Structures are given as C-alpha cells and as structure tokens.
C-alpha cells in the first residue's frame, strides 16, 4: 500500500503539485497575470453588443453592383451586399462550381466534394490554357523546389517525422502529370494501331 502522499493528484481532492507564487511568476515572466481578471480579456464575453463602436455608419450596407450572377450559398437569403469579384467562374470548372452552389447547401458533403473536384478541373484547364501562352506553367519554378538547394532541404529534415509524408508531395504534384502523359501515350498508340489496321 503506497503512502498517501505518493498517490497522484487525480485520485485525491486537491492538486499536490505546488505552483510558483505570484511573486515568483512575476519575477520570471514579463507581464504575468496582467490579464488575470477575465474582464480585462477582450473576448471575455463572446457576445458583446456594441454596434456604435464598429465604425459602421449604415444600418445595412449599400449594395455592391453585381457584374455577373454571383454564385452564392443557398443558405443565404441573397447575395451579400459586399463580395469578392476575383476569378469569376469559367469553363467546365465554372459549370461545376455554379451547379454545386445552386444545388447543395453547406451541410451537404456533395457541395464541398464538387467544389474540390472543380478545383482540380480548374487547375487542369488552366495548365492546358497556359501552354497556348508565352508563359506556360513550369512545375519546377512554380513549386519553389529550388529552395531545396538554397535552404538546406536535406539537413532541415534530419530526424523529423514529417519527412515521411514529404516523400508523397512529389507524387501529389507530379502524379497527375505522369498519369496524364501515360494516358496520352496509350491513347496515341491505340489511335496509331487503329489507323494502321
């Protein structure tokens, strides 16, 4: 039977582990306890009704002009009065995005999975489009992989557990390109064979 004092705090009514005194903590930690009173913490009351302090001088903001039918969550009553106008939906990815917003609410997994799918389609559309420009996508420069040489890629990873999944990163980046190239080669071969027959 252990001595009572050997029984850990969790099994008795008070913590046995002594904490430092206020004086010791103040001497050691700059500013220890200045926000000890919860009232001094800015978000102490999660809901703090103070509409006159925000700088807003309107009850409802003027509406920003809508340059195209702005896709929006069906959980909203309408398009919000202010919104971002970056990257309007276009191409096949745009069709998928608009469908996802029009069809599914935010609670539906399909909404988010369609948006992720659209993101991948978008990347492919833009990669292909870039090949018809003077600045095609360049996976070497755009991945910043040069930093592996300039910022100690190998030495930095020594002994780290996350190095394991770093090995997967090139697969995530290059995998679809390799698969597409393989698919293209197979397709062309099939076509050539069909023509020869």
């Amino acid at each position: 039977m252990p001595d009572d004092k050997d029984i850990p705090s969790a099994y008795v009514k008070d913590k046995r582990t002594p904490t430092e005194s206020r004086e010791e903590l103040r001497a050691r930690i700059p500013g220890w306890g200045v926000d000890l009173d919860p009232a001094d913490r800015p978000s102490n009351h999660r809901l703090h009704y103070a509409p006159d302090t925000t700088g807003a001088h309107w009850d409802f903001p003027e509406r920003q002009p809508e340059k195209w039918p702005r896709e929006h969550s069906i959980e909203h009553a309408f398009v919000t009065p202010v919104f971002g106008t970056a990257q309007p939906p276009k191409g096949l990815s745009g069709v998928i995005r608009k469908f996802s917003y029009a069809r599914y609410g935010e609670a539906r997994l399909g909404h988010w999975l369609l948006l992720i799918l659209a993101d991948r389609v978008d990347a492919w559309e833009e990669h292909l489009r870039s090949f018809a420009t003077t600045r095609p996508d360049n996976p070497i420069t755009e991945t910043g992989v040069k930093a592996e040489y300039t910022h100690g890629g190998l030495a930095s990873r020594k002994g780290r557990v996350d190095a394991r999944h770093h090995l997967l990163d090139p697969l995530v980046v290059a995998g679809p390109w390799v698969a597409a190239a393989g698919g293209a080669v197979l397709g062309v071969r099939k076509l050539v064979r069909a023509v020869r027959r």
Partner: protein
Amino acid sequence: MRAMVYRGPYKIRVEEKPMPVIEHPNDAIVRVTLAAICGSDLHLYHGLMPDTRVGHTFGHEFIGVVEQVGSSVQNLQVGDRVMVPFNIFCGSCWYCARGLYSNCHNVNPNATAVGGIYGYSHTTGGYDGGQSQYVRVPFADVGPVKIPDWMHDEDAVLLTDAAATGYFGAQLGEIAEGDTVVVLGAGPVGLVAAQSAWLMGAGRVMVVDQLEERLAKARSMAHAETFNYTEYDDIVVEMKKQTDHLGADVVIEAVGAEADGSLLQHIAGTKLKLQGGSPIALNWAIDSVRKGGTIGVVGAYGPIPNAVKFGDALNKGLTLNMNQTPVKRQWPRMFEHVRNGYLTPRDMVTHRFPLEDISEAYHVFSAKLDGCIKPLILPSAA
C-alpha cells in the same frame, strides 16, 4: 501590379495583374508595404480548401498605405499607414453588432458558416489577398486601423492574424490562476498563445511540437516547458504523467488541419482530402485535458468532416471553445501588451523574402526548411 498567383496545388508564381479598383463606396485600395505567409495559407497551397481558384492571390496578413478611398469612407485618408485585420467585416450585421467580426454575415456570399477573409479562396468570399503590391480593402471605415507611431512594422503585420489568434486562443481556454496550460503547436500562433497564457495567470505552460527550433523558440520567447512528441511513445500519456494524472486544466490547439503526429490521419486528411485535414492535434487535446477542462481551438480546419473523438469529449465533460479570431476586438489590449514588451510577436520572424521569390518562400515554409517559423513577404522589393 505584381501579385502572387495560385496555379494549382503546390504551384504558385508571380504575375502581372490589373490594379484592384473601388467596387463599393466604402472600399479603399491599399498599397501593401509588408505581408506574411500564414500557416493557414498552406492549406490553400496544398489544395485543401474547397473553391480555391487558379489565379487567386493569397495573403490575409498585411499592412500598407492607403492609396485610394471610396466616396463614403470617413475614417481613412490617402497616405494613412494602416494595419488590416484578416477578417473582412461590415460592422453592422447581427454578428458584428455583437463583436463577432470573424462571423460577419454581409461579406461572404459563398458560405454562411465562415465570414470574409482576404485571399482565402472563394469559400471565404472570393477576395484577392495582400501578397501583392495592392489590395482592395472593403469596409475601410470598419476594419483597418492606423499603425501607431511607436509600433514596429513587423509587430503590426503579425497583429493582423498570427499574434491576435494566439492571444485569442488563450482567452478561449478560460484560464484561471495557477492553471496548467498545454499549447499544442509551437508555430507563430502557439508561441503567442503560450506567452498569453502567462498573462492570464497560468501556473505552468507546456508546449508540444516536433520541430526543435520551434520548441527552442517556445522556451526563449514564451518561457515554456517544451516536449518533442517524437521522443515519447505516446505524448498523451506523458501529459498525464506531467500533470499528476489529472491532465491539463486547459489545452490550446494551435495546429489545425495539417498536423503531423499520425501518418494515417495526415494522409487521409491532407493528401487524400478524405477529411477537412488531420484531426490528430484536436484528438490529442481532447485526450490530454483533464475531465471538466477546457480546450481553446484556433487551429484551422476545412469544411469537410473530420474524425474527431467526440465521445471522449462528451464523457470527459469538456468545454470546447473555438472561433476564427475577431482580430480588431483584440487590438487595444494587445497594443498595450506589445508596447510593454509582454507580447513580442516579431521575435518569431525567421525569414524575409521579396515577392518575386514567393514560390521558394512557400516551399521553405511548407516543408519547414532552414528553421523557418514565420516568413514575411516584401512587395516593395518586387
């Protein structure tokens, strides 16, 4: 103008883009003088956040100079040096009226579950961000604040998100005097959360991470005890031993979607996108806190469901507090703490990159090369 542009997962470049224009009478255009890459930008970079469109300019941590104002702007003038909270918010909706600036209902048509954020995909409103030379700032009378003369620019830019989120995370923990506080993650947010825990009266602050340089920073910057979880078979068991088998009174989860610690969860959450990121840090928080304890969650997760140990959270009677940070609400008090030297955000800055080198900056930060804790971006050098 020159701007960082997303080209698909793991791929970004700098492009010439049209200058932003005033689209609403309360807009301002800000010339960015200093920006930062946030850990949450990596979620976009890795293709985790739904509706991240090619061509998008990231960046929600930036400061700059007002270049142009819309017709209804009253509080700012051209030439003002401003710091801009990462939240875009109207100041007048039901939520803003109650101080929930990060939950504004008037700025994000794409989702009701999240407010507006600069340069953070269309899921947060489709606004281009500040890793560029110029940026559109909606509700200029509500969000931006003139940078105090005494404040260092690097502190100012970190106060727009990382530092404010650390301080907010500690508040979510509802720390009482003498509490044992565990901070999961010694990144920019976790470092300030650890500093803040002391201000709120913690009796003991322990920080958990796997990167030695970050743990060293937690010791020097936040006077914390540190634990490298890779040195323990089970970090949760170690936390129990450290707390006399009670568990921590408070755990602050400052890691979010791209947590390491479980290869399976990491691959399922961040590589295969089967979850809204890996929930391992959240699960460690649930397991490490004592029964009846409190978890403050400021780690960011995507909208896709996660495999969270909710049964344990229920059985332990936990309180889970969480939100995106209402940044501007934190500022007056934080400004005092920074001025007094109690919070020292710029101590975390390890790298400064010109905008033109932003592809390398993202790779360094993403792979955590060269001891990188916090990289800043200098648009003026473009």
